[in-house]
């Protein structure tokens, strides 16, 4: 799973200011990474879900997100080669392709998506939440780089909500293992007030972000909450949360969306504004990146807009109320980690999706099941059944992969989508008649 950054599939028709900002931010971080060694800045690698970006900023670390590299390489059609490379090196065909895309890139000299060499990590910040693969992924990287690694174990929310025991455990790890390690690696002393400042910024961005997400309740929806959101989430899910730049970005984005609502406009797609909204869907599961545009096109060509998606919540389920809290800095960082989408148990995930289908007046739930991602995929069929049962809206199930081009079969996916849309249509007509 992940979060994303979109430079490869940039819309060509309409260039809003927010888009330019977002692109500049992403490029900026890659440029920072490229300069890091020369500037003798310390580099941390970490994951998107449950990332502790604000904390890492307190130590002046430049942060690299391997998942984002995998996505970028997926969009640039490089991931297939890297995956093969990793498989040749003995990695199984069956495991997460993010890992293999990353390892493949590493084996091939760690040349980043912007064609510059990525710096080696000084510290691997293993924030282990929501996905088992993370743990092995960083063990693999550690094995390669032999660098300092610090593990933040975030217990799974097996029941409803997290327990105090879990939160205390995470806070204690922050205090006793994570912060001391980061201090040692960076040589920067931890300053909790600095953290508070960053969290304040995060909070501001989060408010506007939630507003943008909820704008999809309008008809027609001014945004696409899955394909379009891939672009929107990148600042807040990665190296920018906690910076004024991100705050500014979300303020700008909000302004643009407000304008679109006022104009009664639909979402922007790579081929311009989507004119006629025919289907409103909720999507569960990550997208496919190797054929991102073709995939998206299968939707907007049919007038399908995604009004809510769980994927846009992998870096935080803000729309259910969570905000970073400068008054309880470490506690709120801990809660953030505990709260990432895949760290919630299935009943909780079903409840969220059910809420989306109802509140966003969707025609149904579509699941894009990712072959190599158990964290998302194991149990999705049951989730679909449950949501169908509770909402009375039909579900559909397609299967692709994140970044392995071998598992994206356009004909197969299109066939199912077509059948699904025709089914919704037929049903509507029957109810109308």
């Amino acid at each position, binding site marked *: 799973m992940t979060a994303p950054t979109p430079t490869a599939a940039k819309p060509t028709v309409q260039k809003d200011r927010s888009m330019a900002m977002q692109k500049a931010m992403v490029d900026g971080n890659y440029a920072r990474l490229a300069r890091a060694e020369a500037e003798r800045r310390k580099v941390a690698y970490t994951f998107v879900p449950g990332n502790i970006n604000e904390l890492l900023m307190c130590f002046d670390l430049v942060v690299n997100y391997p998942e984002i590299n995998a996505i970028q390489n997926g969009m640039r059609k490089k991931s297939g080669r890297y995956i*093969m490379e990793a*498989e*040749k*090196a*003995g990695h199984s065909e069956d495991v997460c392709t993010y890992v293999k895309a990353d390892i493949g890139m590493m084996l091939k000299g760690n040349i980043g998506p912007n064609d510059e060499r990525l710096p080696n990590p000084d510290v691997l910040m293993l924030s282990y939440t929501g996905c088992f693969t993370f743990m092995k992924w960083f063990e693999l990287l550690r094995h390669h780089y032999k660098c300092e690694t610090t593990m933040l174990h975030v217990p799974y929310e097996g029941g409803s909500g997290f327990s105090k025991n879990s939160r205390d455990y995470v806070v204690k790890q922050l205090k006793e293992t994570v912060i001391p390690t980061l201090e040692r690696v960076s040589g920067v002393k931890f300053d909790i007030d600095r953290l508070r400042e960053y969290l304040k910024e995060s909070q501001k961005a989060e408010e506007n972000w939630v507003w943008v997400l909820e704008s999809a309740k309008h008809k027609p929806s001014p945004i696409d909450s899955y394909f379009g959101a891939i672009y929107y989430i990148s600042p807040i899910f990665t190296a920018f949360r906690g910076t004024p730049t991100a705050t500014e970005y979300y303020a700008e984005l909000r302004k643009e969306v407000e304008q679109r609502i006022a104009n009664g406009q639909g979402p922007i797609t790579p081929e311009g504004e989507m004119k006629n909204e025919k289907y409103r869907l909720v999507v569960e599961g990550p997208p496919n990146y190797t054929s991102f545009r073709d995939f998206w096109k299968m939707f907007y060509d049919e007038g399908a807009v995604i009004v809510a998606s769980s994927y846009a919540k992998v870096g935080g389920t803000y729309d259910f109320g969570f905000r970073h809290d400068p008054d309880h800095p470490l506690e709120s960082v801990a809660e953030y980690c505990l709260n990432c989408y895949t760290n919630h148990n299935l009943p909780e995930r079903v409840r969220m999706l059910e809420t989306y289908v109802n509140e966003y007046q969707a025609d149904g739930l579509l699941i894009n099941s990712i072959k190599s991602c158990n964290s998302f995929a194991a149990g999705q069929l049951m989730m679909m059944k449950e949501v169908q049962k509770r909402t009375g809206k039909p579900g559909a199930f397609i299967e692709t992969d994140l970044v392995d081009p071998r598992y994206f*079969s356009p004909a197969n996916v299109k066939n199912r989508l077509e059948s699904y849309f025709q089914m919704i249509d037929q049903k509507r007509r029957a109810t109308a008649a």
Partner: protein
Amino acid sequence: MTITTGIDVGTGLIKTVLFRVEDNSITCLAKRTDKIRQRDPFKLTEEAYDGLLAEAGMTRGDIAYCATTGEGESIPFHTGHFYSMTTHARGALYLDGEARAVLDIGALHGRAIRIDERGKVLDYKMTSQCASGSGQFLENIARYLGVAQDEIGELSKSADNPEVVSGICAVLAETDVINMVSRSISAANILKGIHISMADRLSKLLKSIGANEGVVMATGGLALDAGLVAALNESMQQQKINMTVRTHPDSIYAGAIGAAIWGAYRYRKLAELGHLAKAS
């Protein structure tokens, strides 16, 4: 002097060889293949064995060790069984002394084996359970295209714009191929496409067992497919594996040859130990 036979019971073919092994010479006396084609493989094995002996003017009594390999574990009349990668390794080395890796490409599985100069198996790997890159698949497609087995190679080599098969599954790949024909892609380009995807799989397999220099000997039925061998060499180059793939007219017998040679080795060892197993 030790006379031995090696019988490789395959999925599509039974390969039988008769060998004379002396201290410093190993000679092939006779060989034959039998297509199984819906016949009982065990009965056929017996026919092949006796048939070969008859050709050479011998009887079972003349055989010091009858070794099976492949799926011949439960052949009742064998003296002993060796597993197929052990035998292909030895057979490949017999066919080409410079071989340091073997690609055994048979009807259902592909196997990559890394060996040393004595034929010792250092590492190996088989293609996975679910694969379209098998001889059987190629055979089906070729039939569908109306191309005879021995035409495949040349045709594939004449391809100008190969079309790669996307499917992982042979069933779906078959439909892919039908689609290609419907888009008027030539048989040459289709076959080459299949060869490329098979070759990529196989070279990946080779790389994953750490083979990276010397000669790769192709064995098994598909070693006779010049198109595949060519695609393999291209793929190796592309993947920067510094090895050349070679093949031999007798490549298809590699397993049987290896079995015969190991049989002789085992026979002597057993003789040394004083308990001679007699070929029945």
